[in-house]
């Protein structure tokens, strides 16, 4: 194996790596906020909100990410909107991942025994106060490990940008491969870049899982 070509293509790899990080961070922020809103909708005391939240989560959890990205990349332009690969890919990541985050948050909140909410309400707290002061602080501990895990998935899934010319690591790896024909080496370098991001996240998930389980 000969990795000497990597030097002359380091600019491509680094540009792709930068865009992968960029898409992951945007996706992370967007899906976290959207996921929280959806989780609150799913446990809200109003039926209509619950129905919308549930429909969203079930729909996007059960279709492929590629399909969500295609809706933005091919579907919207066919109606006249103009989105490039990076924007469609990142929006797709947000929409798709938010469904999983919503599910993790909902499960966490509902794992707090119902008696807690009843006790808080009967001491005179409003629903929102009880949620904020009693339920959420307990739920956060249960919710953190699955959410870190979703972020790990999001980083890996960001490679979907490569399919829609989103200028990420996967896209540039394909590019370098088509110039050098050193396929094995090119994908190994790309893999190393992904592992730089994912291994620390996987480790953090493990540590958090153990730590929060012990104190909880």
């Amino acid at each position: 194996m000969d990795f000497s070509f990597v030097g002359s293509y380091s600019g491509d790899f680094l540009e792709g790596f930068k865009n992968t990080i960029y898409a992951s961070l945007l996706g992370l922020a967007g899906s976290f906020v959207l996921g929280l809103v959806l989780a609150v909708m799913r446990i809200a005391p109003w039926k209509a909100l619950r129905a919308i939240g549930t429909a969203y989560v079930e729909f996007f959890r059960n279709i492929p990410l590629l399909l969500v990205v295609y809706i933005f990349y091919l579907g919207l332009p066919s109606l006249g909107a103009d989105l490039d690969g990076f924007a469609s890919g990142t929006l797709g990541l947000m929409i798709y991942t938010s469904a999983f985050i919503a599910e993790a948050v909902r499960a966490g909140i509902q794992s707090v025994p119902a008696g807690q909410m009843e006790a808080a309400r009967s001491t005179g707290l409003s629903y929102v106060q009880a949620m904020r002061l009693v339920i959420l602080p307990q739920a956060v501990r249960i919710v953190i490990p699955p959410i870190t895990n979703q972020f790990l998935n999001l980083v890996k899934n960001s490679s979907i940008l490569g399919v829609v010319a989103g200028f990420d690591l996967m896209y540039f790896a394909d590019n370098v491969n088509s110039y050098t024909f050193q396929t094995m080496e090119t994908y190994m370098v790309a893999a190393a870049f992904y592992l730089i991001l994912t291994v620390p996240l996987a480790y953090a998930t493990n540590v958090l899982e153990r730590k929060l389980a012990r104190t909880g």
Partner: protein
Amino acid sequence: MDFAGAFSSDNLLFLLKGFGMTLIVAAVAIVLSFILGTALGLIRYSRIKGLGTLTMLVVETIRNLPLLLIIFFVKFALPEVGIQLSTFWAAVVALTLFEGAMISEIVRSGLQSVNKGLVEAARSSGLTQAQTLRHVVLPIGMRRMVPPLVSQFISLLKDTSLAVVISLPELMHSANIVYGHDVSYVFPVLLLAAVLYFAVNYSLSLLSKRLESNEGARRRTPGAGKGKPAAPAATAKAQA
């Protein structure tokens, strides 16, 4: 948007054929990744010296890479070392490696969740380690693995769509061809694809929920089911 044109009988038949390929690839990969995942999970659970560490390294590397990269690698890099696979088998092998690594983690943690006291009791009643695994740990652990396994299989079915990058003639590939003819077909075809994926995956998730609640009911009913003594913590939590 042109629903009538997009859903002409020729197009519908073509798309359904694509979905047939999606289901076949998924089914083959589910069986193979389950076998691979169980084997790797057992190796890691039984802590065989050397082999366990090696398995851990390989599994963790694969688990932390994008599946897309693994698909490219299997299809385009492996031929450089003499392993040439057809598109179908490249997709199946890549899916099996990736999902197998995921499943091995589910199997390992499922087995490790079985109460240590139960294992000790089995060993001290004279069962060998292999017997303990077969008669005590596996039956209890396997039942707990069902919900995460089903969600992994749902992921696998969705992930088959990534094989579009190596032109496997599955649903997304067929969709690309159909709306390649006419841009007004894009939305109708994507919608149909979403409905097909959703129908299968949602049914699977309902099935998993049913299995889970049956399991929960059995555990909560005193004296019913073999699973009960194994899960005192779960029972206590469920009743709290």
